[in-house]
């Protein structure tokens, strides 16, 4: 277990409201318990950088994946009317940015996000982790945007921030199209390195270990660049109470499409050039045999495998 108790378990117990506090406590207990291995692991993965850097992290605010999801009946788009939270996949990028910029005078971490209704709760989580400020693009006309339109909007916002490095997750947990960061890089006219499992930088270039089918590649890339990180690359910190308090007063610039000079008809549902035709139930698997282990579980599996002639 990464923490003492997972979010899902807290939710089952109805205790998820106390998750931040429980996490902070759990984190402390975990640190004590796994002091040796865990601390050593993190030290080994700690990023050392002494250059002044401005890092932008793309953060997606999504419906809670633990809550039942549904599609809007008319448009077949994901129902985003509930409370949004920071996509867990983005916590790795936020942590990496904080480590890359950490402790260097003048370095900064800016979050960039697009969400309906001026939603900021997910951004507050990342600000509580330690990011300095956020840019949120929120505009009614953005509802129903495809990934390319979203990339255009984020690109416009990121151009304003003029960062040295843009970090994003390899894909989001809800939409998982996984193409946005590369579309973004192409729109910004900069290189990209996807599926990074380790990143280091000297302020002028990034050195990345990039996941491949056969292992990994060492990739060098001059800045500015877009880097996408896989989960587990760093261990995201949990916001401290001090961080949570501080996040409340950190600046979030809320921008509209007009602020960014983007034509509303080119994005959102109006500008989308793909459509969902219908939604159908998938073929169901036949019901299996579910038995409670009475000490014979292993034997049952052996018998099953024998019957399939795989052993």
């Amino acid at each position, binding site marked *: 277990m990464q923490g003492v108790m997972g979010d899902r378990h807290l939710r089952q117990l109805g205790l998820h409201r106390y998750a931040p506090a429980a996490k902070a406590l759990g984190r402390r207990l975990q640190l004590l318990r796994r002091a040796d291995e865990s601390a050593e692991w993190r030290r080994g993965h700690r990023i050392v950088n002494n250059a002044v850097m401005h890092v932008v992290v793309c953060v997606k605010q999504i419906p809670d994946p633990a809550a039942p999801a549904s599609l809007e009946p008319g448009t077949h788009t994901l129902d985003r009317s509930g409370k949004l939270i920071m996509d*867990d996949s983005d916590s790795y990028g936020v942590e990496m940015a904080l480590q890359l910029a950490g402790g260097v005078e003048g370095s900064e971490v800016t979050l960039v996000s697009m969400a309906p209704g001026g939603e900021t709760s997910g951004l507050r989580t990342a600000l509580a982790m330690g990011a300095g400020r956020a840019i949120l693009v929120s505009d009614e006309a953005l509802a129903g945007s495809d990934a390319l339109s979203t990339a255009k909007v984020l690109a416009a916002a990121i151009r304003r921030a003029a960062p040295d490095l843009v970090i994003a997750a390899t894909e989001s947990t809800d939409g998982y199209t996984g*193409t946005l960061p*590369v579309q973004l890089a192409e729109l910004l006219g900069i*290189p990209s*390195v996807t599926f990074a499992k380790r990143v280091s930088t000297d302020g002028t270039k990034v050195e990345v270990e990039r996941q491949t089918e056969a292992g*990994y590649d060492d*990739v060098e890339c001059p800045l500015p660049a877009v880097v996408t990180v896989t989960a587990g690359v760093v261990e995201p910190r949990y916001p401290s109470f001090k961080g949570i308090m501080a996040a409340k007063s950190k600046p979030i610039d809320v921008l509209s499409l007009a602020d960014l000079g983007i034509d509303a008809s080119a994005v959102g549902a109006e500008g989308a*050039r793909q459509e969902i*035709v219908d939604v159908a139930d998938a073929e169901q698997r036949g019901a299996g045999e579910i038995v409670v282990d009475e*000490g014979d579980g292993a034997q049952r599996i052996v018998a099953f495998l024998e019957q399939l002639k795989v052993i």
Partner: protein
Amino acid sequence: MKRIWVLAEVTGQGPTALTLELLTEARSLATTVEAVAWGADTASVAGTLGDYGASRVYDVGDLAGALPGPLVAAAMAGLIGAGEGPEAVLFPASYDGRDVAGRLSARLDRPVLTNVTGLAEHDGGLLTEHPVFGGTQIVRARFTGEGPGIYVVRAKSFSAEPAGGSPAEVVAAPPGDVGPTGAARIVRRHVEEATGPKLDEAPIVVSGGRGLGAQEHYALIEELARLLHGAPGASRAIVDAGWVPYSHQVGQTGKTVKPTVYVACGISGATQHLVGMKGSKHIVAINKDREAPIFSVADLGIVGDVHRVLPALVEALQKRS
């Protein structure tokens, strides 16, 4: 449909399995199938590409260590701009495939449909299938507007079958200057020696999840996989926790597997995971929570403690070998 392109990924062993799957499917959808490939010796795979249906392969050439995304997309955009383009481009859902698709999308100002698991002709265009909500529902989608459709297709959505075609004609398609976008360079490749079959090709996959409780218990998964001549896999939860590398991940954001037998140990069966293994022929699940969604897809479900069942299973199989 008149013409479909397939992005062909080539390794030391030739075109990847997914490339051949895409060529096979493209063949059934279009009159003309053409491949786009890069590398030092594309001519050497022209025979295989032709055998699976490509009449022509556009060769972007040796990229001298550059990541393929921007360069291959530029070459494709160049051909499309010159009027040589197809109605649809099929990309493998792989590390490089997604890079090229994303770059091409931005260049052409055309969106992408990803996680495609099915394709059908419809009204002169293509209708795509995408599994959602743990694969319990299928969304069907299509492109509107002008320009080629860009599709990123998941592995094992189609089966690969040769058609006995003659070797593809190799046509040079240099990328031209892509400016700073092409500046990322591979300086060294690391091949991690894997023993046993590859995760996405193994006839048996044994996966572990958070229910294992601790990283060291993953050794049991590896041992069981070894005993069954299969490959060890993992849920996203334990990959995120840093217990095992991302390359082991089965699921929506990881690999799609369709083995003869899939053994899920201590995996609850989140949507994320189910999408990647639901197509397995037979599924065995061990989980202590009777309500875990994994049991909804299991042929044999053991409601029990993975820490008891797994060691007993390993021991029983060790005795047999």
